[in-house]
């Protein structure tokens, strides 16, 4: 399977589970899509730790000091899995998984080279030392506990946007 193919399948599956999806060609396009997505949202938390995160840090007046007070979090995540349309978050390198959980809106950036084709590819890539927390996120937080009526955003984000760059 080619890389383009894997990216296509990932975006298609992520969309089918209720995530917003964008394919950005370069950092400029990434920047534009992030500002568009968070246009009407503030404050926004962005750790700014990776190159991609540094490129999309919101202007100061829009910035949240921490994820507890944020309406949205913009961050680069560890990777993604095409087969299930999931993004993968990991606690390695001091990443805060709660940042993509507490605010109502999660904007996740995935580097195109970090998309795995299948679940098996992902699990075989893990070394013997694994981080304390690896979480797969597949669409927004949802529940159907009241008469099986699907409702999003019960505890986690009600909106998930995924940008492949």
């Amino acid at each position, binding site marked *: 399977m080619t890389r383009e193919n894997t990216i296509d399948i990932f975006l298609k599956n992520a969309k089918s*589970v209720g995530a917003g999806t964008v394919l950005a060609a370069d950092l400029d396009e990434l920047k534009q899509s992030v500002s568009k997505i968070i246009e009407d949202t503030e404050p926004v938390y962005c750790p700014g730790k990776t190159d991609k995160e540094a490129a999309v840090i919101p202007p100061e007046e829009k910035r949240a000091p921490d994820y507890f007070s944020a309406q949205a979090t913009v961050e680069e995540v560890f990777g993604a899995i095409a087969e299930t349309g999931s993004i993968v978050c990991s606690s390695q390198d001091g990443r805060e998984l709660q940042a993509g*959980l507490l605010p109502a809106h999660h904007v996740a950036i995935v580097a195109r080279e970090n998309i795995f084709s299948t*679940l098996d590819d992902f699990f*075989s890539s893990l070394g013997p030392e694994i981080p*304390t927390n690896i979480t797969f996120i597949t669409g927004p937080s949802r529940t159907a506990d009241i008469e*099986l*009526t699907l409702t999003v955003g019960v*505890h986690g984000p009600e909106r998930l946007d995924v940008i492949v760059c």
Partner: protein
Amino acid sequence: MSKPKTSLDFRKNSVEALADTAMREAMRNSTAVFSGHREQGFSTVPDLESWRDRASDIRSRVLDNLSEYVDKFAANATSAGAVVYRAKDAEASRDIIAAILRDRGAKKVVKAKSMVSEEVYLNAHLEEQGVEVVETDLGEYIVQLAKERPSHILAPALHKNRRQIGELFAKHLGVDYTDDPEVLTKIARKVLRKKFLEAAAGISGANFAVADTGSIILFTNEGNGRMVTTLPRLHIAILTIEKIIPSLTDLSAFIRLLPRSATGQIHSSYMSIITGTRNPGEETGAEELHIVLLDNGRWDILAGECREILKCIRCGACMNVCPVYGSVGGHAYGSTYPGPMGIILTTMLEGMEKSHPLLDATTLCGVCADVCPVRVPLLKLLYTLRERRTKEGLVPSLERTAMAAFGLVVKSPTLFSWGQGMSRISWPLLSKIPGSETLERLPKPVKDTFRRRMS
């Protein structure tokens, strides 16, 4: 209103359940929706049978070497920073958890849904010790407010309609009545968010535990499982020993089957792989992780003829397709686990003498076995237990006498012929006897019988 039953007297419980029209309406809609989702979830899967084979083989391998895998899991979880406890029974597990909380002065606990904690009645025990326990799965929170127990292993409040839930929220949370699921969900989000941030400890179950890495795995849709395991500094997980899988590479087999079988989803919204405690340089993970590995009868089940029930991954598919479950709902079983897997597991856990009435809660149609993603031979196990019940003389005496009489009659052509004639003559009389209403649903005996036409 559907009340949790504490007795396993299925015949009595089911008569009451069938009279509850609100519950029956809710069940009729929801089991159909669940089954439809499941079918849809698998509709695009090219080779489901090979997925089922793989998952079934992994679960069988675990059961064949369970002791080895449990030791391996415990050793690896310990080296990752967890404290692992082995609890023989429900009481031991409750005492361990109560002591952990007491020693740390933890008075407020948030909980993610765990059927094992229901099995050991953990909440009631902790509340007696003065601990505030808040269920955070929306369905579980609803049944906790109603002081009930879950009626489905995945959708605990399946038996309740939106009006009942609206009234419950208005009464307990001081909000205006609404029966809009979206508004009700937002109310719960606000109330429970505060609880998450205040809690001193989080208690969760686990869908799986990985022997090779010492990790525990949690599948959730709401995100409460993630909060419970990452926000408080102290995390306690309770799980039964058979939840182990050998390695993380095996997990893909269950990611493909569990959410699809349960809700038709390609993947649940969240799945967390939690391995030990927070390492230096990490910003996520509990500072203390305690894992309680509970036996509660599993070693005995493993040694017996119903051991394959321990392959179960708790997807709920067997109850969603069961015609009995769909009619009477989960509370009529009077047990922690309802539906076909529940009948078998409960009989094994509680013993034949106490739970044999539950063996009536099946039509033996076998659809449960057809849908089981890990090939638990549910129908075969139901037969095995029903045979054992007969051998142990636990069938109701009227049924036993009737069967013995029928056996005698069919052995003799003369008696059989006489019986046929008699049944026709006495039918109008028999159907007048109070309590014999079921006769009206049976075909009436005819004069020109099949046997007569053939002779």
